[in-house]
C-alpha cells in the first residue's frame, strides 16, 4: 500500500482512579489508508476513547501515550494545542456518538455547520451557506432550508445524526472517525448515509474509521475490521472474512445476534474469558 494516512503504534489511554490507574486503551496499533476501517467491540472496550485520543481530546486527568502517532507522515503525538487545532476538523474529523447531546442547543443547525467550514476554508458567509445547504441535501435531509434555521431540539435524533455528519464532512477532512454514526437512524436513511461516506472514500480517497456495534453492518460496509476487547485489539480481519473469524470473542459477538433470516429458540450468549485480556494479535497493515 501507499503511505498510510494515519499510523498508530501502541496507543494507550489511562485514567487515574481510586483503585489505581485504569487503562481504557491498552496498546492499540493500526494503520489507516484510504479505506473503510471498522472498529467493533462491546461497550466500554475503548472504541470511542481511541478516536478521541487520535484527536487529542482525552480530557485531563486522562493521559495518552503512544509509541507513534503519525498523520500523513508527520507525528501528531503530543502536538501543542494550537497545532492540533489546525488539524481538527480540517484534516481529521469525528462524528460524535450521541447527537442529542453533541449539538449545541442554542445555535441553529446552519450556524453550526457553517462554523467549521468557514474556519477551515476561509470562505465567506454566502459560500458557507451554500455549502451547508449542499451538505444537508447530501445527507438526505428533505427540507434543508428549514432545517438550516432549525435548532437541534427541533429535529429528531436521526436528523441530528445526519446533521452531525454533514457538519463534520463540510470541511472535507482527510480522515473521518465516525462513532456509531448510524445507530439512531432508520434503516433506509442509514443506508443513504453510508452511501455518502462510501463515496467519499472511493472518490476522494478519504480514510474512514467506522465505529459500530453492528457486526453485520461492518462486515458489509467496511474493508477491514478491528475487533476490540478491554482496550485492546484482539483480532483484525478483512471485512469479508469476518464471518470466518477465529477469535472466540468475535465469534461470540456474531452468534449473539438475532437474525431475520432464520429463527432460533435461544440466542447464543458470549462467554468471556480472562485470557482474552492479554493477547495482542500480530499487526497487519491496511489494504
Amino acid at each position, binding site marked *: 500500500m501507499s503511505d498510510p494516512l494515519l499510523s498508530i503504534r501502541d496507543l494507550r489511554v489511562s485514567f487515574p482512579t481510586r483503585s489505581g490507574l485504569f487503562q481504557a486503551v491498552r496498546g492499540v496499533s493500526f494503520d489507516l489508508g484510504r479505506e473503510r476501517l471498522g472498529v467493533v467491540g462491546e461497550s466500554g472496550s475503548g472504541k470511542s476513547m481511541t478516536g*478521541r485520543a487520535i*484527536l487529542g*481530546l482525552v480530557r485531563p486527568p486522562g493521559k495518552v501515550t503512544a509509541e507513534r502517532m503519525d498523520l500523513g507522515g508527520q507525528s501528531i503525538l503530543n502536538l501543542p*494545542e494550537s497545532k492540533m*487545532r*489546525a*488539524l*481538527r*476538523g*480540517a484534516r481529521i*474529523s*469525528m462524528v*460524535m456518538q*450521541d447527537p442529542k*447531546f*453533541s*449539538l*449545541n*442547543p*442554542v*445555535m*441553529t443547525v446552519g450556524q453550526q455547520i457553517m*462554523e*467549521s467550514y468557514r*474556519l*477551515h476554508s476561509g470562505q465567506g458567509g454566502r459560500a458557507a451557506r451554500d455549502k451547508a445547504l449542499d451538505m444537508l441535501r447530501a445527507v438526505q435531509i428533505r427540507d434543508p432550508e428549514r432545517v438550516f434555521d432549525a*435548532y437541534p*431540539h*427541533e429535529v429528531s435524533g436521526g436528523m441530528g445524526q445526519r446533521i*452531525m455528519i454533514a*457538519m*463534520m464532512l463540510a470541511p472535507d477532512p482527510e480522515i473521518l472517525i465516525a462513532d456509531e454514526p448510524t445507530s439512531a437512524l432508520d434503516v433506509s436513511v442509514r443506508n443513504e448515509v453510508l452511501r455518502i461516506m462510501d463515496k467519499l472514500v472511493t472518490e476522494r480517497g478519504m480514510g474512514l474509521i467506522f465505529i459500530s456495534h453492528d457486526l453485520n453492518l461492518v462486515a458489509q460496509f467496511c474493508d477491514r475490521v478491528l475487533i476490540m476487547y478491554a482496550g485492546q485489539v484482539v483480532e483484525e480481519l478483512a471485512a469479508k472474512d469476518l464471518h470466518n473469524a477465529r477469535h472466540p470473542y468475535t465469534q461470540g459477538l456474531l452468534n449473539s445476534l438475532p437474525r431475520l433470516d432464520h429463527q432460533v429458540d435461544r440466542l447464543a450468549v458470549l462467554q468471556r474469558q480472562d485470557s482474552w485480556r492479554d493477547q495482542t494479535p500480530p499487526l497487519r497493515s491496511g489494504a
Partner: protein
Amino acid sequence: MRLRRRAKNVGGVALSLVLTLLGLLLVTFIIGRVMPIDPVLKVVGERATQAQYDAAYQAMGLDKPLWQQFLRYMAEVLRGDFGRSISTGHPVIDDLKRVFPATFELAALGTLIGVFVGVPLGVIAAARRGGWIDQIARVVALVGYSMPIFWLGLMGLLLFYGILGWVGGPGRQGIIYDGMVPTVTGMILIDSLLASDWGAFRDAFSHIILPASLLGYFSLAYISRMTRSFMLEQLSAEYVTTARVKGLSERRVIWGHAFRNILVPLITVIALSFGGLLEGSVLTEIVFSWPGIGQYITKALLAGDMNAVLGGTVLVGTCFVLLNLISDILYRVLDPRAK
C-alpha cells in the same frame, strides 16, 4: 395562531404580574400593621401628651378596622398616593422620585461592573478549574462576600479620596455642581449628559465610581461564582467536545458555544443581583452619604414611618417583579428551547 398564543402568554404573564403585585401590597400592608414600631410616636414626638397622641392616632385612621384601613390604603396606592412621609415631611411619592434614581444609578453601574468583571472571571475560572486563576477568583469572590462593606467602603474612601485624591468624596456631587444640572431622570450621570454639562458629568462620575465599584465587587462575587458553576456544567457537555472536534479555538469554544448556553440562567442571576442592589445597600449608602432608597426605607423603618416603608417596599417589590418579567422575556427570546 402564533399571535393568539403570544397574546395568551402575555395575558398570563400580566395576570401573574398583577397577582404578585396585589400580594405584595397585601403583605406590605399587614407587615406595616404588625410592626412593633408605633408610627404615631414619630408624628407627635417625644414630648407629646396623651391627648396629642390620641388625636394623631385617630387622624392616621389607626382606630378603624384593618380591612377598612387596607381598602383605603389600596385606593390611595392605586391613585399613586403613598401618603406623606412622617420622617421627611414630604409626600412619599416625591421622596421616592428623588431617592430611587440615586439608587438606580448606583445599582445599575454596580451591576455593570459586576457583570463585566464577574462574568469573564467566572468563565475563566471554570475553564481553568482548579488552576490558580480559579483559586484567586474564589478568594476574590469570598472577600467580596465576607468583608463588611462599610469597612471596604471607608478604606476605599481613605485611600482613593483621602490619600490619593482620585475620586470625589461622599455624596453624589461636589458642592459647586450641587443643584446645577436640571433634573430630568434624577440620575445625575444621565441628566448631566442630557444637559451636555461635561464638568458635572465628570464630577458625578468621580463620586459614583467608588461606591459603584464596591457594589460591583459585591455583585461580582456572586455573579462570578454562579457563572463558574454554570460554565462547569456546560463544559462537561458533549457539544463542547463537538466544537473542539471542529478545530475551533478554545476561546471560540468557550465563548461561542458553552457561554451561549449559560446566558439564560446567568440573566436570572444578574437580574436577582441587580434587584438586590436596588433594594439598596444601606451600609454603602450610609458610608458614601448616598441619598438612596435603602437608607430611606431603613430610616423610615426605624422611625416607624410606615407610609414611607410601604411606599418604598412597593416600589422595590415592583422592580423585582418587573426584573423577573424581563428575565422571563429574555429567556423566551434567548433560549430556543423555551416554549
